[in-house]
């Protein structure tokens, strides 16, 4: 196959776009799509201070890389779950990227707070690791934004993640989640930061290709607790459809985006945690309950690695 742009040997065929591209032209093509997505859906506006939730995987490291290349200076935040080699290797890949981008990355070590890894924390409160993990991550991500003045939290969710979640929500008509999959979730009352997904129109295959072609060294292994067999099953089914009808996943998500405007936002009164001020649905947020359960009184400290801090003088080129 030849590159549609320059005629040289192509390195990737993109059947959803009926095209094939060489390395340089593919990188340009993908970064342009992310840039257009950011502007079209107002994910990051002039004056915003974005921070990327990084895990060490291909998507989060790539979105961090792309944003900085597109002229959106962004720092990173990583929650070290304390899961042996997996967490250690992830941290290495993340600090390498921070160095490469000359950006700062904040790291919260779960073991520094609880003196145990997230799996043991979960066991102590009779939850599965992913449930405790999700709760801690949500809290920490929000806290870093509020404490350190970042107003947009970027995540690396890609087209396949979104399509798989949408399929799951549709199959079981999970009304409460169905309309909450917008690429941009607005902030609430200054207590919850805005969350955006600049990769939601980029497939997992494109993101892996981008990482390989850009020399992004990501962690290939999965978190040992990622046994979400359902989401992998949905991804498999969607990829079978994609194989026979290229562009299916993109149509699925684009159709959803058109309909989402009509989705009604459910109003639920938000209360604030009396200990930390984090939004919650009782007197105390889950994180403060968890800390109490382990008799932990010390505050949450972030380690900071590398790079310069967010420089407000740096101009954003969009």
């Amino acid at each position: 196959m030849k590159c549609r742009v320059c005629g040289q040997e192509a390195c990737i065929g993109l059947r959803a776009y009926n095209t094939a591209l060489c390395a340089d032209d593919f990188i340009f093509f993908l970064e342009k799509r992310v840039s257009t997505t950011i502007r079209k859906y107002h994910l990051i506006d002039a004056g915003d201070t974005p921070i990327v939730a990084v895990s060490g995987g291909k998507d989060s490291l790539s979105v961090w890389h792309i944003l900085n290349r597109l002229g959106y200076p962004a720092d990173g935040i990583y929650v070290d779950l304390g899961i042996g080699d997996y967490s250690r290797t992830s941290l290495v890949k993340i600090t390498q990227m921070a160095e490469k981008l000359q950006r700062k990355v904040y790291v919260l070590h779960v073991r520094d707070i609880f003196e145990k890894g997230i799996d043991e924390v979960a066991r102590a409160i009779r939850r599965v690791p992913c449930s405790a993990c999700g709760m801690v991550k949500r809290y920490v991500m929000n806290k870093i934004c509020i404490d350190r003045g970042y107003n947009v939290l970027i995540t690396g969710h890609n087209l396949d993640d979104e399509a798989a979640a949408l399929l799951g929500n549709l199959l079981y008509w999970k009304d409460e989640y169905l309309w909450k999959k917008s690429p941009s979730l607005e902030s609430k009352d200054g207590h919850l930061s805005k969350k955006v997904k600049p990769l939601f129109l980029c497939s997992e295959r494109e993101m892996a290709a981008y990482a390989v072609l850009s020399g992004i060294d990501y962690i290939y292994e999965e978190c040992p607790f990622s046994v979400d067999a359902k989401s992998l099953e949905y991804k498999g089914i969607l990829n079978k459809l994609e194989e026979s009808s290229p562009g299916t996943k993109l149509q699925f998500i684009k159709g959803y985006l058109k309909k989402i405007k009509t989705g009604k936002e459910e109003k639920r009164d938000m209360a604030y945690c009396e200990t930390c001020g984090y939004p919650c649905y009782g007197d105390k947020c889950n994180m403060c309950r968890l800390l109490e359960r382990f008799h932990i009184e010390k505050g949450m400290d972030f380690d900071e690695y590398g790079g310069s801090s967010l420089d407000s003088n740096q101009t954003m080129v969009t």
Partner: protein
Amino acid sequence: MCYEKAVKVELEGKIYDVEKPMQVSRLLQQFSLSRETHLVVVNNRLVTEDHRLEKDDQIKLIRVVSGG
């Protein structure tokens, strides 16, 4: 043509030998993998499905799907 038995393929940390040089699409079929879920890197270069593998090529199959 057994003397051509020199195509080594790496997948998930394991090395496999492949009978003879062939097209990338054929290789994916042999491993029962879809082009949607795996990328093929030959001698450190990402290649398309119509690329022809040669003797002594270093081949790596990269899974693109991640869970969760």
